[in-house]
């Protein structure tokens, strides 16, 4: 592994690009959402304004050490996924610290941030934090079922668990994408992605309207800034992961931007069309259609 | 009713088993096995004219000791059983008047009975009979006395003493057999004497006397204890 300072700087640059692209993507999506509901929506630069504001707020409240560390964990989760992901295929500079991109590492690194966030919010002592987390975790267990099945299916298909190798196997044109070579795994993965991105109908966890308070209010100022930062990075990183797994990866930044945008758009699109599930509904849902698709995706390889 | 049928069924099963024994039994034409040995050598070895006595007292003396022990045990158990619940209220049995005939006759007959009993056990090695028979006869005398006089009290001490001393004597003779003769309960510790006479067959007459006394005492003891217990007044 290359621990040189240049490597570090390249990675930092990549992170910066991803962060900005993430923010831009989220404002764009919000605008699309607003237009669909007949509103005008926010300006595209709104996230930067928000972030600047949050980082410069002075009044800060802390409930204790874990409360303080929670956002760090959360951000580490997002950044970590980025770090361990070969973001541009075939590029030494943009492969970060991924050592050929181990899929399992990334799948499990998602928990890092979640756990930290959960603990930090927990120390805040707000009942809604605990409720939200319990729902989030409940839903997450089932989101991961089709995802796991899809990953296993890919592993069987490509006989590797390295993201770089999976992307490499998809090089050679549009038709070699997993999307076409293994459509069922892709379907399972993309359904799972809906939950992972947490848009409607799987956004009871965040419950933006009914529960106006909870972690987002408990965490304010810089804390919220850190969380927002993470959100931006995480969305791109995760979209990039799906891109790598199912859509042939990206050999340059343009390809990455286009593909991640479309992947992200898929979740927003579903979110604007479907109403929200209750938690047990979403749990059941994930254990039904996506899981069955995932199982079939494996069976065809047996 | 079902139970009765079951019993009948079971007894039929047993009968089936006995039938098996029966059909394979052909009767003995000649004396064989142990019996022939005793017939040939019993008189010479033990010196008792009554071969059954020879077997009972000498060859199978240990059985006899056990047998005496059983009676002794029965008496002992009855002894401690019947004194167990002294405090319990026992209804006094209405004692019926004994008939004149019985009272008078018993006074005459009892001594004779005792005498016959003694005769039987003393001659046990010569004639049919022996210690048990004699003892039983003596006990029947005691029973007659009790019938004649239901409230009569048989002295436990005397009976027990006779019983114990004869028992000890029996064992002692047995041990003497080891010391003086071939083994435990060997009758040849005394000279065999002339075959067919009273003073013959070594220690058999002696043993029979003790057995007779002991059995008589034990049976009397049992009868007496039961009778006493029956008559016990509530205290």
């Amino acid at each position, binding site marked *: 592994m290359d621990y040189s300072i240049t490597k570090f700087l390249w990675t930092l640059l990549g992170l910066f690009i991803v962060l900005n692209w993430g923010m831009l993507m989220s404002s764009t999506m919000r605008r699309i959402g607003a237009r669909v509901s007949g509103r005008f929506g926010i300006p595209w630069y709104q996230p930067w304004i928000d972030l600047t504001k949050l980082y410069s707020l002075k009044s800060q409240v802390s409930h204790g050490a874990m409360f303080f560390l929670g956002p760090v964990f959360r951000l580490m989760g997002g950044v970590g996924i980025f770090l361990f992901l070969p973001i541009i295929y075939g590029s030494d500079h943009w492969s970060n610290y991924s050592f050929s991109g181990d899929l399992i590492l990334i799948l499990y690194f998602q928990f890092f941030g979640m756990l930290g966030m959960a603990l930090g919010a927990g120390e805040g002592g707000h009942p809604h934090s605990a409720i939200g987390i319990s729902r989030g975790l409940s839903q997450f267990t089932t989101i991961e079922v089709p995802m796991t099945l899809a990953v296993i299916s890919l592993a069987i298909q490509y006989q590797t668990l390295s993201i770089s190798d999976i992307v490499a196997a998809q090089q050679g044109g549009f038709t070699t994408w997993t999307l076409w070579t293994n459509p069922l795994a892709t379907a399972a993965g993309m359904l799972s992605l809906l939950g992972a991105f947490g848009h409607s109908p799987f956004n009871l966890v965040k419950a933006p309207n009914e529960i106006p308070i909870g972690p987002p209010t408990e965490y304010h100022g810089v804390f919220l800034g850190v969380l927002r930062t993470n959100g931006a990075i995480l969305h791109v990183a995760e979209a990039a992961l799906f891109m790598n797994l199912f859509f042939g990866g990206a050999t340059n930044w343009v390809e990455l931007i286009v593909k991640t945008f479309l992947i992200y758009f898929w979740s927003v699109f579903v979110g604007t069309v479907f109403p929200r599930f209750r938690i047990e509904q979403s749990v059941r849902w994930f254990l039904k259609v996506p899981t069955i698709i995932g199982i079939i995706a494996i069976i065809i390889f047996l | 009713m079902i139970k009765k049928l079951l*019993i009948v069924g079971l*007894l039929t099963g047993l009968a089936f088993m*006995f039938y098996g024994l029966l059909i394979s039994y052909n009767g003995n034409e000649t004396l064989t096995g142990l019996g022939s040995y005793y017939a040939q050598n019993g*008189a010479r070895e033990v010196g008792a004219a009554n*071969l*059954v006595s020879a077997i009972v007292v000498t060859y199978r003396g240990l059985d006899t000791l*056990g047998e005496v022990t059983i009676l002794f045990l029965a008496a002992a158990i009855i002894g401690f059983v019947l004194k167990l619940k002294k405090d319990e209220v026992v209804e006094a049995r209405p004692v019926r008047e004994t008939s004149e005939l019985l009272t008078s006759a018993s006074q005459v007959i009892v001594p004779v009975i005792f005498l016959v009993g003694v005769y039987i056990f003393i001659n046990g090695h010569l004639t049919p009979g022996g210690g048990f028979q004699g003892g039983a006869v003596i006990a029947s005398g005691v029973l007659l006395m009790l019938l004649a006089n239901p409230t009569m009290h048989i002295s436990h001490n005397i009976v027990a003493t006779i019983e114990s001393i004869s028992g000890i004597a029996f064992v002692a003779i047995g041990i003497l057999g080891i010391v003086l003769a071939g083994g435990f309960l060997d009758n040849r510790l005394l000279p065999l004497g002339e075959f067919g006479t009273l003073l013959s067959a070594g220690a058999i007459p002696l043993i029979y006397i003790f057995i007779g006394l002991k059995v008589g005492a034990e049976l009397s003891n049992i009868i007496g204890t039961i009778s006493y217990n029956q008559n016990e007044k509530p205290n």
Partner: protein
Amino acid sequence: MEYIILISGFLLVLIGLWGILSQKNLIKIILGFTVFNTGINIVMVTVGYVKGKTAPILDVISPEEALTSIVDPVPQALVLTAIVIGLGVTALMLVYALKLYQDKKTLDINNFKDLKW
């Protein structure tokens, strides 16, 4: 001849058992036992019988002729012991019956079921 005795012995055993198993009165059950024991004793003596021979007492028979003229003395000796043992057991049973009667004022066997299961 010996068959008849043997059969009657077995019959007595069965009759005794019938009494033991079917009678409700303890005293009758004990009587059943005496019948049962008697039957067994008869069977035992019969087994020792030798056709046409006499008792194993050498008063008139000389010891030399004994082998050819007496029945087997062993079963007789055994019976003697068995009788006494039966007597002891019967005496005990009677005393137990007595105590049971004193306890419950009845001799019906169905009343003594304090211990079960």
